[in-house]
């Protein structure tokens, strides 16, 4: 990931900063300028709770090269108590046990390395609560 883009995404990736539509209340992660539900441009900043529930999941057996040593690993669509949904890796467990309804804590983890000499990219992953 190019460093400037990574830098712009730090509030969302590090602190789970999201956007909340001031008109309809929809919570969006990452934040957007326009609400996809009501088209409002009035958004406020909210921090998501570091927890969520698995909506759906899958197990990756043939990953991109940078995740080769992590396979097999679980990817899940997670919903936070605020109603925001996003995809994240679920770790510290047998990936086969990850499924809908599983309660997760969201922990700060290393997401990927840009090769042997690039920057380290951090964010949040799910861990069974």
């Amino acid at each position, binding site marked *: 990931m190019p460093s400037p883009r990574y830098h712009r995404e730090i509030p969302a990736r*590090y*602190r789970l900063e999201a956007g909340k539509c001031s008109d309809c209340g929809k919570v969006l992660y990452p934040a957007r300028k326009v609400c996809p539900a009501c088209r409002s441009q009035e958004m406020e900043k909210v921090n998501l709770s570091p927890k969520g529930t698995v909506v759906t999941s899958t197990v990756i057996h043939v990953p991109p090269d940078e995740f080769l*040593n992590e396979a097999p690993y679980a990817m899940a669509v997670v919903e936070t108590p605020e109603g925001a949904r996003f995809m994240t890796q679920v*770790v*510290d467990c047998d990936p086969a046990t990850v499924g809908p309804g599983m309660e997760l804590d969201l*922990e*700060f983890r*290393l997401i990927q390395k840009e090769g042997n000499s690039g920057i380290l990219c951090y964010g949040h992953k799910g861990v069974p609560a």
Partner: protein
Amino acid sequence: MPGIVGYGAFIPRNRISSEEIAQQWGKDAATIQRGLLLKEKSVPGLDEDTITISVAAGRSALARAGIDPQKVGALYIGSESHPYAVKPSGTIVLEALGLGPEIHVADFEFACKAGTESMSVALAMVEAGRVDYAMGIGADTSQGAPNDALEFSASAGGAAYVFGKEDLLAEVLHTYSYTSDTPDFWRREGEFYPRHGGRFTGEPAYFHHVMSATLGILDRSGHKPGDFKYAVFHMPNGKFPLTAAKRMGFSQEQMEQGWVVNLMGNTYSGSSPTGLASILDVADPDDLILITSFGSGAGSDSFILRATDLLPEKQDLAPKVRDMLNSPRKYLTYGQYAKLREKIIVND
């Protein structure tokens, strides 16, 4: 003097037993366990490093402190496994914790003493009135060369402390440091694993500095070993801290709660700070606590603390050390361990 207003610790969930490592290298597991008093150790995942451990411990410390993160005016992280050679761990940790940007940040190194070093400077910043709150963290994903005695102990974990002047969980009553140039353990620039002086790491290094610092702070404070409910000394293995304690007149009972090394291993900069967190998890008001760290090179920092009436109501606000130690998620084979510690060379 100011004191601790919040604390937290984090220990990765993977474990490898001393028996598994001994079996790999054809060593007698019973002899290792009897000699080093180590049953198992924590192992970081591929996605865990000093920065992620610092963030987890820091979040717990802020939860117990119950303060606005923006009021933290200084952040120091002590480690000998900072993920970057050039780029601070602290900048990433402060963003994740919601601190700053009006904050003084530094990464410290002093072998295994870097954690208490960061705590000392954080405490001093508050005491000097430069900041309202300061956070000091000790964390490591320790390196130990394959088939070296260090491989049985080098583990991962850390603890974070927020210092302030009001609403203290533990007052810091005294501090004392003892340092000399002693080449007992080192890692040169570009080297992957540290080297050590074998038995030389014992008497002239660990015991001389830990005992000089501990006896020094006892002398200056007028306290005797029997005054303390709890004591914790740096834990490079299970045996050294218990031997040092016995020589100075501390009992097994005083050492027990903070002696986490048999299940956690040596988390280097996070070792004695995590032992202290384990003590704070159970301490009662007015309990006196002694902590002495040790960093090769070599030096020791000692602190005398007294728990306050506020501590019990804060203990349950974040995960406790013994709970983390007693709930490992996965026991690794040596092959899995070698993969997670990136000891196996693979193509880019």
